[in-house]
């Protein structure tokens, strides 16, 4: 009988028939991969925090929103469909997904279908029972806990939820005691800006933190475009690009290494095609709390949503999204003049989702993201002061040169 070639992380003793595969490093499929590798499930838009910078949080007690949310059986049906189209993992997010009273039921259901579960949470609602469940039947993905401050005052100045700091600490403690693998990530905001060192020192003591925590700081506006006042507040909390660069480049070597790898792989002028990212099919899609499937978590354009209450996930990823998105092109002259020709695409986070939340269109340049990308490119030596990336003709050569220099 034939055997698979051995890989470096396999046990070296006897011939192995069961081949251990790390999905991130190996291509499992010789020809065609699954129709969808991950499905994001936004179990609720409600949250027990009311964070000043958040792009998706309705009050926890919003009965109207709760009444519209998918029922347990409907989520289970979607999970079954996700497994049927070959998804290896699902992400439970929100809002705060643990607000759903049926969270444990949905979690178990997903795991029993053979899906790995990535959980995004603020950890406030983790109970001993839930932590026990996560220890006994692990999610097989690191739980990601958002942290808003290292002290009660700073944390709750961000969350605007009295008592939230103690609940977060208790929730994290429950995971840690039971050795449920989790990592933490921060959001850099005025109330907690002075606590970075303290946060990182604490994060370094968490056994599963193999790299320092990342920070949200170039905040997204609300994808629902539901409050101009909230969007103005979020925009006011964004770090100025140069200040953001100072944070990103505190570990200069790691930053360079990461960016060089990223730039080499992903940076190129996109032309007028809007969805070269593969959103919606092949990679991942996102179901909102009410059963609408969207190409990604950021993009809330109702014209691009597919109602899973009326159709199937398979139909959406094999027909609806490919038909709709694969040839969708930008028409905005400003976009065609700038973004379509810009070699920083990839490094720049400009995308239809960001354009939608900022402007309500798919192809309007987002000035702030453009500034952030230019600041990074100047730091990396890809652009000189005053240069505009979309006017640069030798972008690919500049990226190659930077790669060679850093490798040397």
């Amino acid at each position: 009988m034939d055997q698979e070639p051995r890989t470096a992380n396999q046990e070296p003793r006897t011939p192995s028939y069961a081949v251990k595969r790390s999905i991130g490093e190996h291509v499992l499929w010789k020809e065609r991969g699954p129709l969808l590798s991950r499905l994001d499930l936004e179990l609720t838009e409600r949250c027990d925090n009311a964070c000043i910078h958040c792009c998706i949080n309705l009050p926890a007690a919003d009965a109207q929103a709760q009444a519209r949310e998918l029922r347990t059986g409907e989520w289970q049906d979607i999970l079954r469909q996700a497994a049927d189209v070959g998804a290896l993992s699902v992400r439970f997010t929100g809002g705060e997904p643990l607000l759903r009273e049926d969270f444990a039921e949905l979690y178990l259901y997903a795991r029993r279908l053979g899906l790995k579960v990535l959980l995004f949470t603020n950890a406030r609602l983790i109970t001993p029972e839930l932590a026990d469940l996560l220890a006994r039947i692990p999610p097989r993905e690191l739980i990601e806990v958002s942290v808003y401050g290292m002290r009660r005052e700073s944390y709750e100045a961000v969350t605007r939820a009295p008592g939230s700091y103690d609940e977060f600490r208790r929730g994290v403690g429950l995971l840690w005691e039971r050795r449920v693998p989790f990592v933490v990530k921060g959001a850099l905001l005025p109330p907690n800006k002075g606590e970075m060192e303290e946060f990182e020192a604490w994060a370094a003591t968490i056994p599963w933190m193999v790299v320092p925590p990342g920070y949200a700081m170039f905040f997204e506006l609300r994808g629902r475009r539901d409050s101009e006042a909230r969007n103005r507040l979020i925009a006011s909390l964004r770090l100025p690009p140069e200040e953001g660069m100072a944070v990103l480049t505190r570990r200069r070597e790691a930053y360079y290494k990461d960016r060089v790898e990223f730039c080499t792989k992903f940076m190129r002028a996109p032309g007028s095609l809007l969805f070269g990212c593969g959103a919606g099919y092949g990679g991942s899609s996102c179901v909102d709390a009410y059963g609408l499937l969207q190409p990604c978590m950021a993009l809330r354009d109702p014209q691009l949503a597919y109602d899973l209450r009326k159709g199937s996930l398979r139909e959406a990823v094999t027909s609806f999204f490919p038909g709709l998105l694969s040839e969708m092109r930008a028409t905005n002259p400003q976009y065609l003049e700038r973004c379509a020709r810009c070699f920083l695409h990839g490094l720049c986070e400009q995308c239809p989702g960001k354009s939608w939340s900022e402007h309500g269109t798919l192809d309007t340049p987002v000035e702030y993201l453009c500034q952030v990308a230019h600041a990074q490119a100047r730091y990396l030596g890809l652009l000189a002061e005053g240069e505009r990336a979309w006017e640069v003709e030798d972008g690919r050569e500049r990226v190659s040169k930077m790669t060679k220099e850093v490798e040397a």
Partner: protein
Amino acid sequence: MAEIGLDAVVMPSEDVVAREIEGELIIVPLVAGIGDMEDELYTLNETGKAVWDRLDGKTSLRAVAAALAEEYEAPVGEIEKDILGLIEELLKRRMLVEARGV
């Protein structure tokens, strides 16, 4: 663990979930203690998959080997040896359980 014999009958453990995705059999650990990394899953090669599909908790390994020998037109002795190797490994990894004695 006692050495497994050809009269053994085994079946997939309830502690794992086997999924076939685009022709690949992927074994996803369900409970803690199987698989040591969060992002690691297991796959079986083509012949491993052919064996796995026949492990129904009723058929002996000898009968599985005989069926495969006929299907693949291969010497039964060689197949029996390989099956025992595979089963021992999967039992060790807690992906299979014995349905009755060895």
